[in-house]
Each structure stands twice: as structure tokens, then as C-alpha cells.
């Protein structure tokens, strides 16, 4: 992931962008755990709301791959496909953990 290019796309200093990415990852990992729990408890609205928040944050940072996956999670939650919601959320959490390694 080219953070320099991503920060330039948003007319931001790379340092500031990295600071925001760190918060995105930290909050995202915590939120995806909550999303998984919500889906397992059949709380579709809560799961969709968490996915919505994640999706918005990804769009803020120009992380379109994360945005698209979160959009899929939000859609499956609203459609009541909660097993699928958990599967995609777990895949997203893995991707997020992978970029956490680059950032730290």
C-alpha cells in the first residue's frame, strides 16, 4: 500500500495521513470485533451501522478497497445474511491487520 501516494491524493502531509491511518486501523479492528458479535447475536442493524461507519472512514482516507468490502458487509447485514456478514468481516479484519504491520 503506497501511503505517500494516498496522502498526496488527499493533499495531505504523509505524517498527518499516517496518524489518521493509525486511528483508522485501531478503531477498525475494535469495531469489526463488535460487528462480528452483533452479527452473531442477530443484531443486523447494529452490524450494518458499524459497517457504515467503517465504510465512511475508508472513503475519508481514499481506501477504496476497504470501502468496497465494508459496503458489501453493510449490504449483507441489511439483507439479514448474517453468516455472510461475519465471513466478510473476518476477511476485512485480516486485511486490516496486515496493513497494521506496515504502519507500526
Amino acid at each position, binding site marked *: 500500500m503506497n501511503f505517500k501516494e494516498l496522502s498526496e491524493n*488527499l*493533499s495531505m502531509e504523509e505524517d498527518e495521513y499516517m496518524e489518521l491511518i493509525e486511528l483508522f486501523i485501531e478503531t477498525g479492528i475494535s469495531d469489526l470485533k463488535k460487528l462480528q458479535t452483533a452479527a452473531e447475536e442477530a443484531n443486523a442493524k447494529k452490524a450494518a451501522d458499524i459497517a457504515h461507519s467503517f465504510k465512511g*472512514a475508508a472513503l*475519508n482516507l481514499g481506501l477504496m478497497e476497504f470501502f468496497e468490502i465494508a459496503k458489501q458487509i453493510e449490504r449483507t447485514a441489511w439483507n439479514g445474511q448474517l453468516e455472510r456478514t461475519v465471513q466478510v468481516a473476518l476477511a476485512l479484519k485480516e486485511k486490516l491487520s496486515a496493513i497494521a504491520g506496515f504502519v507500526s
Partner: protein
Amino acid sequence: MPLQVLSRNMGILKGNDDMKKILVVDNHPMMLKFMSNLLEKKRCQVLTASDGLSALEILKTYTPDVIFIDFVMPNISGDKLCRTIRSMPQMKNVYLVILSAIAAEKTVDFTELGANACIAKGPFNKMSEHVLDVLDRLDQKVPNDVAKKIIGLEDVHPREITK
């Protein structure tokens, strides 16, 4: 957590009286950091709150010039918070701006909530422009009726928002 945020930012309150006083309410730490960075660069005094209850606590002792409020938040939603703030006598002149990620998904009549403007959440470079435009408009005392459309909706393509 909200009190930690408050104490961390209290030093800013010792600044110049001419500085615009701003409160940002959003449940996402990244958005609070982004808005603080942006507004502090413009020499604003910035306090942040991570939910509506914390915001109301801050407003007991702080009267901002502008409040930015996230529309979708746990506990107290942005629309309820807007109405509550607008009903407080000491807040009747505060400039309320809704930050909304759902603006492209459903109709939001933000003026009915007592808000003065609504900015669609999108890429940070676009949001920066719109937030600073709103502050400029406030400085120029542009009437509210000029700002009745949702600002930045064109930056959030319908295909990017799904519900």
C-alpha cells in the same frame, strides 16, 4: 475518554479571544483528529466530544461559535442533539453544521433540525474545502437560506453509498 479529550484540549482555551470557538462531536476518533488538525491550523479553539452526552456536558461551561455534529452516533443521534442544542437559550446563535455520511442515501432536512448547514462526509481533501467554506461563509455573514443544499454531495457518488 471524553473528559480526557477535554483536558487534553483545555490549553487551547487560553488562546486569543478573537479565535473562533468550535466544538466537534463525532464518535469516530479519526474524524475528531482530522477536524482538530484542520481547524487548529486555522487558529480556531477546538474542543471535541465522542458522543452527544459528552457534548452536552461540555456545553454547560463552553459556548462555541460553531458546532460540527455527526449525524449517525450511538446513544444520542445527531438530529436529537441538534434539536436539544437549539432549544438551549444560550445556544440560540451558535452555528450548527451537520456532518453526514448518509446524505447521499436519504433526504435530510437539516434546517428543520435547527442546523445552519450540512456537509456530506467524503474524501478528506473535499471535506477540508467544504468545512473551510462554511467558516468563510460565517465570517462573511452569508444568510442561511443560501446554504440550504447539502454541501459536498457531488463528492460522494451515489454508487459509493449503499444501504
